[in-house]
């Protein structure tokens, strides 16, 4: 059930209606049932996996609370190990098996299994790990009610592709639930509309160009096609993922829950360090809190900091998918962060306006180069595309049509003005007539310009 399908809109309307009609105590059961139904619409068999991990982490947290010393640590490692075991098997087994088989001189599929990657496993395992680690660190009290904990893990707006919500954030809303304020409602509705427009009008248009290019990179050689394909993918993945997140945040807001911000105009970042403070922010914070800082962060000297940055980003890359390309992508970003630290780039230091634009352009280009490894089907393809991106003299045809160029320019203007004047925030406090006008125009744009003849799944569903 995709967020941009009529099926989801209908499902969400029913859940929303029942949520406000039912007495408060029944709402958790409604949301839990709805979340499991939502998950089972994809593949009913994998509900067993979700339930198993829910039970393990629920009891592990209680065990941690009641234990001391080594037993406490054992409970933590049991829970974290179980999550990583499931994640490792479903997501990485075939990757490691293929590499092992190759090392031993056999066929890559010699030890392979026919494994289906359970939907959202990367997200809900990270959410579970953060919960048990927080309990271990005494930053979170264990949840007594199994149903409440199960809802935290399975809550449908964020189950499939985040944002990765911390237990304290979720339960602050859950245990002190109040009907959403008028501004939260207005914000939620606008976020949902914005998310749908990002996905259906922008992402899916750019996806068609990127998919065609990356399906067979050698058929359209040259500088311009390579940059066209890469820019198309850069825009697709941003609009796709941030669109998904906007719908998740908006639908949660309508139910009375606050989700953390996940994207803040990342392509306007003036450095790679700033980029990671604006892109998939809930993952960046998770990696910082549960990986980078426990590794030592920047507390043990420069060399240790660079190593920690590399390790964090390598694992961050591997989290996205089981392939060498993702590891290289993570390593590329880790190295970029290390170089920036070495060069003394401080993302907190204000940048004069005349320096910001060229630095943003440079950052954007570096990020786009990184996306080549993220998107290309094989390392060979990625290497070929990179070669074309730097081939001179520039040849071939730029793949983005005039309309897509206009769309890209329009979104750049919107993002830049939002950065300066926060018009979206102002919109959520707009008078009634303006709000109604925005709704009307958004619905008309969705009706007339969304891609509906082909179904393009959300990019992050594969993770």
């Amino acid at each position, binding site marked *: 059930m995709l967020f941009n399908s009529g099926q989801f809109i209908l499902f969400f309307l029913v859940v929303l209606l029942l949520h406000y009609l039912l007495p408060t105590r029944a709402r958790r059961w409604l949301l839990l049932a709805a979340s499991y139904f939502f998950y089972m619409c994809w593949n009913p068999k994998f509900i067993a996996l979700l339930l198993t991990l829910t039970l393990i982490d629920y009891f592990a947290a209680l065990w941690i609370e009641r234990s001391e010393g080594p037993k406490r640590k054992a409970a933590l490692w049991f829970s974290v190990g179980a999550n990583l075991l499931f994640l490792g098997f479903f997501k990485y087994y075939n990757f490691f098996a293929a590499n092992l088989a190759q090392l031993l001189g056999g066929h890559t599929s010699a030890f392979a299994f026919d494994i289906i990657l359970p939907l959202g496993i990367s997200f809900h395992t990270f959410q579970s790990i953060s919960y048990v680690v927080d309990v271990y660190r005494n930053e979170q009290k264990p949840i007594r009610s199994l149903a409440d904990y199960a809802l935290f893990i399975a809550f449908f707006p964020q189950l499939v592709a985040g944002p990765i919500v911390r237990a304290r954030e979720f339960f602050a809303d859950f245990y002190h639930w109040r009907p959403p304020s008028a501004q939260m*409602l207005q914000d939620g509705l606008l976020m949902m509309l914005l998310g749908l427009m990002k996905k259906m009008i922008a992402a899916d248009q750019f996806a068609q160009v990127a998919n065609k290019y990356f399906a067979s990179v050698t058929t359209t050689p040259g500088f311009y096609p390579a940059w066209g394909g890469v820019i198309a993918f850069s825009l697709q993945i941003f609009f796709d993922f941030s669109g998904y997140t906007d719908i998740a945040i908006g639908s949660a807001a309508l139910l009375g829950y606050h989700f953390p911000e996940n994207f803040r105009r990342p392509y306007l970042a003036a450095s790679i360090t700033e980029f990671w403070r604006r892109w998939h922010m809930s993952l960046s914070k998770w990696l910082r809190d549960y990986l980078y800082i426990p590794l030592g962060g920047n507390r043990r000297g420069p060399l240790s900091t660079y190593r920690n940055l590399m390790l964090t980003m390598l694992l961050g890359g591997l989290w996205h998918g089981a392939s060498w390309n993702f590891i290289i992508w993570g390593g590329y970003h880790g190295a970029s962060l290390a170089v920036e630290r070495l060069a003394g780039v401080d993302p907190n230091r204000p940048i004069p306006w005349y320096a910001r634009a060229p630095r943003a352009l440079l950052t954007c280009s570096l990020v786009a180069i990184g996306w080549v490894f993220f998107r290309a089907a094989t390392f060979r393809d990625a290497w070929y595309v990179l070669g074309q991106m730097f081939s001179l003299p520039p040849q071939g045809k730029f793949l983005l049509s005039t309309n897509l160029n206009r769309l890209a320019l329009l979104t750049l203007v919107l993002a830049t003005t939002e950065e300066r004047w926060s018009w979206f925030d102002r919109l959520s406090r707009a008078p009634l007539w303006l709000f109604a006008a925005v709704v009307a125009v958004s*619905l008309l744009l969705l009706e*007339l310009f969304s891609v509906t003849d082909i179904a393009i799944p959300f990019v992050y569903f594969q993770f």
Partner: protein
Amino acid sequence: MSSSRRVIFGFLLGTFAFILIEAFLFRTNLYRRALLPFSTTGSLEMVLDAERARPIRHPNQILAIGDSRMALRTWMANQLGTKYTFAFAGVAGTLPRVWRYLIRDIDPTRNRYAAILLPVDDYDDEDWEDLGNRSTDLRYLIYRLRYRDLPEFASSFTTNEMKLTAAQGILLRGTVLKDDLADFLNNRPKRIDLVSGQTRSWFGIQEDYTGVNKTMEGLSVDWVNRRVTYPVRLSAAERKTVDDILMRGSIPQTGSKANYMRHWFGKIIDQYAGSRTKLIFYRMPRGPLVRPASWAKKQTHSIRDLAAKPNTILLDEHLFDLLEKPEFFMDPLHLNAEGCRLFTEILTRKVSQVLGE
């Protein structure tokens, strides 16, 4: 009103405003006048407008409906000296479901025609494609469908996905017209030229068009060994089309075609119940060669059954047998210029005779 209720009211107000704007754009003539003339929607609207605008000077009007195979050349028919005036409102690729709504809107008073000619492949039914689920029907008819048509039209599709798409299209025409709109926005000057010239070019085709002079001579089939000999001039794609039509296998006969025919022709017949208009069915020339009768088990006879209804006439099913030869066809489906001429002459004379000279 509480603040939260104000937001909900604002959202509903925005939704209502969207519906009004959508209706202003697509439920008036505003965008209809700018439709791509020879697109699915545009061609049907063009045919409808041309026929509605045609002056009616006497009551003996005969309307011919059909798809691209409908070979009646009305200008030839009208020169044959019968007391009837023949008009054509055929649209390539259309079938009875489309004709039902087209006829309804061409002749809302049910008094315009002495007869309407309705072509069929056969008087007996053979299932070989899912006629009920053709998504193009929604595109052809989008300007003809009203809110009240939603239950009948949407439920007539066979898959839930198409039922939903059809319902959505009837409620929000923009969802169907958005490809046409995108083309318009991308090619505005070209579209304006096309739209301003469409009426002239449409009548240009009607008034002196005879047809194509190619033939299928050289086509033969060894039905026993299922071996086709193609005319030398045919390309590989054209040969494949010949195979798909002549050599196609049979599928399990579920009676779906019979149900489709009964339903949609039944609707047309019901529309004219109690009127002066006769509905004349005839079997079109089936092709340059005719598949052996034993290749299909035709268990239902929907058109023969419909003949029992008032105002309904079935012409002799062998009326066009003499045209079912390679020399009268330009491809496996369509008559050539000579075939069209003979077809027009035979049909015109037969219809005049049946209705009374």
